[in-house]
């Protein structure tokens, strides 16, 4: 970390970014970050790493990707946690989750996509059309997946602008679906080998399974510490950790998160928290919150609550399940991978009752006072699940607030009132 800021404009220009617009984006995100994160009281010291990573989100990390590619490496961009990072790494590539958490270039997006498309998909297109995402431009291959209809069809449009490969994800979880998904993993390996020119060996895959599991384990530790009252880390900071997990260097991130977890465990043991003991503890469930979507967490925590868990893809669904590490042959590893990935509970599947079980279990483990069900507008899958989720959770004796929103700031005032009233109610 040097004191004089490096000027990355040449690198961004070489990537074909729209420099004035990109400067505007960086300024906006930097401002949001400062206002949202740096103003929090009593943060763990370990968050310094994530502050640094965020300050270099389009700088140093892009430079690393750039250098990696110049030395022959390939970068693969993904949009969903079903796309196995283990395979990408085993083929010698790096996986980066592409963010889609800010309203950008909607005017251009709406020339291609209908207005009633969810914010995540609009943002995914907006970052491409607006030429402001260096991760996208560093990606040698983008990987889509047949999850919800909106994404599935939007990938067709994105594929017209960039090299994109789509994996077919089944919609059910029967044994024949697992077998089919496994065959998709085999095809994906072939695609990756063609891209990187490297063979996926049992040895390499075993190592990458271990490496990615280690990352998940570190996040499990960070999140387990949130069961303490008071919580030693804010919901905002814990959410940020998972958001960064999608694109940071794997071994380094794992090491830093373990260090953070050490600190959190000490804080929890000493009763040090970010909010007073007894502050309302909230579990958030629903659609993923891609970087830099911090809206709901910020509202909850500014209103005096503390978010202690996220049952979402930028949360427990990302780190909770591990791939079995005992396999020695490629075949066995593929079985294990297929099984672990199809065990993620996403609303694109039917039935998806496992998600409700997860919510109830987390609500108990984390001793929450209330659950907020969060859905992006026009996200049919999560919105339809919302009523059933609310009913089951309420029947289990935990109050629920259902929120539908998008990335704009227009409804922050009204959402704040509802969230404050909910916190008053559960207190």
């Amino acid at each position, binding site marked *: 970390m040097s004191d004089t800021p490096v000027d990355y404009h040449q690198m961004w220009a070489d990537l074909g970014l729209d420099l004035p617009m990109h400067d505007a984006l960086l300024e906006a995100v930097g401002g949001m970050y400062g206002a949202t994160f740096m103003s929090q009281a009593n943060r763990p010291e370990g968050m310094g790493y994530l502050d640094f990573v965020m300050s270099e989100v389009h700088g140093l990390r892009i430079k690393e990707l750039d250098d990696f590619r110049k030395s022959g490496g390939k970068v693969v961009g993904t949009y969903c946690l079903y796309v196995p990072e283990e395979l990408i790494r085993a083929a010698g590539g790096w996986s980066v989750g592409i963010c889609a958490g800010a309203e950008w270039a909607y005017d251009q997006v709406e020339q291609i996509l209908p207005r009633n498309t969810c914010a995540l998909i609009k943002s995914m297109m907006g970052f491409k059309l607006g030429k402001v995402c260096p991760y996208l431009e560093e990606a040698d291959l983008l990987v889509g997946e047949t999850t919800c209809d909106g994404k599935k069809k939007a990938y067709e449009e994105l594929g017209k602008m960039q090299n994109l490969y789509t994996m077919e994800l089944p919609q059910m979880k029967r044994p024949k679906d697992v077998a089919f998904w496994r065959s998709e993993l085999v095809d994906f390996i072939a695609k990756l080998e063609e891209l990187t020119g490297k063979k996926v060996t049992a040895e390499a895959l075993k190592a990458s399974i271990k490496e990615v599991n280690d990352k998940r384990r570190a996040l499990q530790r960070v999140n387990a510490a949130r069961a303490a009252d008071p919580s030693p880390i804010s919901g905002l900071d814990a959410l940020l950790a998972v958001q960064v997990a999608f694109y940071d260097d794997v071994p380094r991130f794992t090491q830093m998160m373990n260090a953070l977890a050490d600190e959190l465990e000490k804080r929890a043991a000493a009763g040090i928290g970010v909010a007073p003991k007894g502050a309302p503890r909230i579990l958030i469930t629903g659609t993923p919150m891609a970087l830099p979507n911090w809206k709901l967490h910020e509202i909850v925590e500014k209103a005096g609550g503390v978010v202690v868990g996220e049952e979402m893809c930028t949360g427990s669904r990302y780190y909770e399940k591990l791939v079995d590490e005992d396999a020695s042959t490629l075949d066995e590893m593929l079985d294990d991978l297929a099984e672990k990935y199809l065990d993620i509970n996403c609303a694109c599947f039917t039935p998806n009752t496992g998600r409700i079980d997860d919510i109830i279990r987390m609500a108990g483990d984390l001793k929450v006072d209330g659950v907020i069900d969060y859905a992006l507008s026009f996200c049919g899958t999560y919105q339809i699940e919302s009523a059933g989720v609310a009913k089951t959770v309420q029947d289990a004796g935990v*109050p629920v607030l259902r929120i539908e929103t998008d990335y704009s700031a227009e409804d922050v005032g009204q959402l704040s009132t*509802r969230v404050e*009233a909910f916190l*008053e*109610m559960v207190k």
Partner: protein
Amino acid sequence: MSGENGTGPDVRVLGLDIGSRSVDAVWLGGGKIVDAAVADSGFDPASVAAAFVERGAHDVIVATGYGRHVARETFGASVVTEIKAYAIGASALFPQARSVLDIGGQDTKVISLREDGRVADFEMNDKCAAGTGKFLEVMAKALGFTLEELGAESMAAESGVQISSMCTVFAESEVTGLVHRGEDRGRIARGLHESIARRTLGALKRVGASGPLVFAGGVARNPAMVELVRAGFAGELLVPAESQIVGAYGAALSALAGGGPQ
């Protein structure tokens, strides 16, 4: 449980409900209402509130409504949300109340209460003026009625015209179209009230509201709305004479130890 400030019943409290259409104030002394006032928000609700702060003596201020945070910064007021304020205010006026409906100038809220008066569940209309006092104002204008006439004409009509849109913008053109087609204006007025009532009753059902239901807010003074909600709700309906100050009253009571049911 003790109030926000752990204060005794003798303290003088000013309760402010700062909304986008009106600013309501209640002054408490010895736990009782000693004065109350309602004023138009105008373009600067904060200065309307400031005038109330100047007006009478008080030891503490509690603010609710969308301007509550401004009041915290400007007058050092404590804050409670509208939901909590209405729950306390309605329960204080009617201890037997089990639910609250507030149709204000810009928003609608429904609250179901537990037996001890605490909030069990609530819903607020989120983003638009659909079905609020503002909606009725716009429609009255489109029909060439005053607000009072709108309610009276609706009461007089035997049946209502079906209005399909709840969005203020669309409903306004729908109403204009109906007038041009020669529809009876009283029946249109009735249809508008019926569609708001339907929507409101749906929200009450969603939060599991049971009677007695306290109907607060400016629109509770509209007899046509009261009649329709009463007809559609499976329980007793209570309309406080002070329907417009329930929020300010609840906010003020929240400051008193044991003053509110919360």
